[in-house]
């Protein structure tokens, strides 16, 4: 049984309107690579130009934030669910 990647609503238009996709992946990084290879338009919304996961993209394996695990090297096993959760932030430009 492969790993399931849950795609958040704002990214579904770039993933053939799918809510999830499944891949045979051994790590979170691998699964996200497969995901953005299959749906190339997703790449710029998940990764910076130098290939790092954007800071406002939260990734969970089952219920664990990968920042507290091994980040993108976090190992996955069959049946795991990887969730991409938008981090929401903003604010006016001036510093005070």
């Amino acid at each position, binding site marked *: 049984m492969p790993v399931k990647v849950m795609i958040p609503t704002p990214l579904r*238009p770039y993933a053939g309107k799918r809510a999830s996709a499944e891949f045979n992946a051994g790590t979170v990084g691998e699964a996200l690579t497969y995901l953005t290879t299959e749906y190339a338009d997703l790449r710029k919304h998940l990764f910076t130009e130098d290939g790092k996961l954007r800071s406002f993209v939260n990734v969970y394996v089952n219920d664990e934030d990968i920042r507290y695990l091994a980040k993108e090297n976090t190992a996955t096993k069959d049946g795991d669910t990887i969730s991409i959760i938008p981090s929401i932030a903003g604010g*006016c430009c001036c510093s005070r």
Partner: protein
Amino acid sequence: MAGETTLWISSHLAERIRAHGAETYPYECCGALLGRDPEAADPEAVREVLALFPLLNRRDDSPRNRFSLTGQDVLDADRAAQKQGMEVIGWYHSHPDHPARPSQYDQDHAWPWYSYVIVSVQNGAPQDMSSWRLNDDRQAFSPEGIEIRHRAAV
């Protein structure tokens, strides 16, 4: 994002966003816009805000010019929407003593598809309100029309 978009909102909910901005002044307020997005079924249909999910600004270090939400806040908003048969269609926040236009910081942290509503609050009084959507290439926001509907909130 294709073409010009419009966000519908009742006058009652629009007023609640303004009131939230006034309440947290001089700090930024924030919350989720819940509603239904018919775009998938009908590209010509408009997106409508049917409820709000006010949240706490988690940026304790710089709340006058920044806001942020935790992953849990986002999940809570999603669950609140699902319970009402809706989805999170966007987010709102205030710009204290600053125009209702997205900053570079807003753009850098934005997601596509969502509607981003900004209310300007000048000296504690809410002023203009605008809505924006991030372009597909992430290089700019496009303004989204706000249509105030004068009927009871759902």
